[in-house]
């Protein structure tokens, strides 16, 4: 039977969670730069604190501008709700801290953003949370790494630095067999390229600093819950997640999975994690990210279009040894990418320049349009040479272990005219060639 459907992606990107302001008629989302919200009465105050009513109390916990961003990202992802955080790192920490404490264990992909790897490998270990890293394509490795103390499986939709495509349906299946959720970092793909919840992921987060914001202006993160994982059932079967399925003395003895069948995770993350760790987002930041989200579909289409042109140029250039982009048949995850990422594989990728580290440096320094900096997902094109920057302390053998060559260059393709980007790359490749002569 034909019938109504949810609004489409482009409509949600503009409207989800926001209506004209009822008190002023303002059409754009107002920036509610206020720390706190006046109570109507003492009874109203008590009922807000006791979760008898929905509403805002203090901006660290929630804010009307942030709430629009949270609802909008949840809508675009097909989730049940979201929490805006101070950064992508804060979103990852909030997810983990909500589900795991000292003695807990995480199984994570080894192909992670360096900051995520640091958090898991060094920092959380200091707080008693251990992580086993497995190669994202090692399906048996995911399964065999799970221990009784495991509480979470975690990977990136497109891994760092080689753009390994996470086989979300398979890894989610393994997680669910063991009564565990799968968390994914969707920063590189955004919901325009892939909706991980449709493939079985349970939780996801973004560094909204990147494509969601899209303009390289603010730091922020968003943690999204699909509402699909049954915390109550997992607790009943495996004893996991008492944090959500048992009374919590830190919040009125609340059993979060009773309060909300599909929103328990976000309730605890907000009522404990934001309250106590405090890594909240500024409403001004939320507003800027909302500005970016409104054009996400347009920008992502152009990012991918430009990237394909640049990739084709690089593949054919004699100074380029190889290009690591999953749309190329040469990429080990090409088939998986065709299945999970039919709209494209994003605009961040690496390629290997023939020659020495010095030639890599010469290449970078000859670029004019590409900005040399440590970020991705800007509307402007960006470049970095890991061997001379982020990984400069490593010798060539250690670099190889990390999947990075002396001539590996990472690009983040922006929204400029593709011909201008290619001209810039041509000039820099020539400079690299001369540096090796």
């Amino acid at each position, binding site marked *: 039977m034909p019938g109504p459907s949810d609004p489409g992606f482009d409509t949600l990107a503009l409207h989800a969670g926001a209506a004209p302001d009822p008190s002023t008629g303002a059409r754009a989302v107002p920036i509610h730069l206020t720390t706190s919200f006046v109570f109507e009465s003492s009874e109203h105050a008590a009922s807000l604190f006791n979760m008898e009513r929905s509403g805002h109390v203090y901006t660290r916990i*929630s804010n009307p501008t942030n709430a*629009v961003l949270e609802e909008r990202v949840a809508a675009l992802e*097909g989730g049940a709700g979201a929490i805006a955080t101070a950064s992508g790192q804060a979103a990852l920490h909030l997810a983990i801290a909500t589900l795991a404490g000292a003695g807990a264990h995480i199984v994570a992909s080894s192909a992670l953003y360096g900051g995520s790897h640091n958090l898991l490998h060094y920092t959380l270990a200091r707080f008693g949370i251990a992580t086993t890293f497995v190669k994202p394509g090692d399906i048996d490795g995911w399964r065999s790494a799970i221990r009784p103390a495991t509480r979470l499986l975690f990977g990136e939709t497109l891994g760092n630095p080689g753009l390994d495509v996470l086989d979300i349906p398979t890894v989610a299946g393994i997680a669910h067999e063991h009564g565990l959720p799968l968390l994914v970092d969707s920063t590189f793909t955004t919901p325009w390229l892939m909706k991980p919840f449709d493939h079985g992921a349970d939780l996801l987060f973004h560094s909204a600093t990147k494509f969601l914001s899209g303009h390289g202006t603010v730091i922020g993160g968003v943690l999204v819950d699909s509402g699909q994982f049954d915390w109550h059932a997992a607790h009943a079967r495996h004893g996991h997640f008492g944090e959500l399925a048992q009374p919590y003395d830190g919040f009125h003895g609340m059993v979060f999975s009773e309060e909300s069948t599909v929103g328990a995770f976000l309730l605890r993350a907000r009522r404990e994690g934001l309250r106590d760790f405090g890594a909240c987002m500024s409403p001004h930041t939320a507003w800027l990210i909302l500005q970016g989200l409104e054009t996400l579909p347009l920008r992502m289409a152009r990012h991918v279009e430009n990237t394909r042109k640049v990739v084709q140029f690089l593949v054919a250039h004699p100074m380029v040894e190889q290009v690591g982009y999953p749309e190329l048949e040469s990429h080990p995850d090409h088939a998986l990418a065709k299945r999970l990422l039919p709209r494209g594989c994003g605009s961040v990728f690496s390629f290997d320049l023939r020659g020495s580290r010095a030639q890599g440096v010469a290449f970078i320094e000859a670029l004019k349009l590409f900005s040399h900096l440590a970020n991705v997902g800007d509307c402007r094109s960006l470049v970095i040479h890991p061997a001379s920057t982020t990984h400069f302390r490593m010798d060539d053998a250690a670099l190889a272990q990390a999947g990075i060559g002396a001539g590996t260059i990472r690009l983040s393709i922006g929204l400029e005219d593709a011909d201008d980007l290619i001209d810039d790359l041509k000039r820099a490749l020539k400079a690299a060639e001369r540096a090796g002569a």
Partner: protein
Amino acid sequence: MELAVATPGNAAPAYAYTGGKAFDAALPCIVFVHGALNDHSVWTLLARWFAHHGHGVLAVDLPGHGRSGGAPLASVEALADWLLALLDAAGVQRAALVGHSMGSLIALEAAARAPARASRLVMIGTAYPMKVSEALLTTARDAPLRAIDMVNVFSHSGIAAKPSYPGPGAWLLGSSRALMRRVQAGGTGVNLFHHDFSVCDRYAGGLEAAAKLQCPASLILGAHDQMTNPRQARALADALKARVHSVAAGHALMSEAPDAVLAALRDALA
């Protein structure tokens, strides 16, 4: 809390959310009954408020839904008997019966079957008869996930209801769909969506039940409700001599307008 409720066709333990406080049968009791493919969690803000303002609260999961076991019961009449048996199990002689959508029909029928046990009847997002189109029933039978998406959109009046439910940051269309999918998946061997909508569609005893009622009745209706249009509740309101509250919301009015529903419910139960 878990209750041992035994009725013909169902002897499985029943679950009722008690509003974040231990249930006290000595307090004035309110029983909340959810609608098709929902569970107790559609009531939690209201249930918490009343539980912390002098009431004993039971927000039930109907048989085969959420945390209540057993097979789903096949008619509004059987569900009304189950609800009265649940009151027995909880040690409650008399209660205000509050239902949403399918649950409102169950509350009505229970109040009619045991008029002395109903102190108030509140029907939220209701209509009578609650007929379901043949096309939707067929989709519910053959493609329940598609039917869930359709009903989800029909049930919401917009995409920006504030302050959201159960709190800021919740995306109502997403959380409502996730809940329906969860409840549907829990119906082992049963297509609960088709079952529940068939139960609504078949119920024919509404006006007879209204005639038996002895307690005050109220209707709380969503002004923009496309599932149970307020016009379709007029005959029932007349038969019940009910007070009618209109709330600016669609069918999912407890989540789209939680404060307005609380205000109307406080008035209805006063």
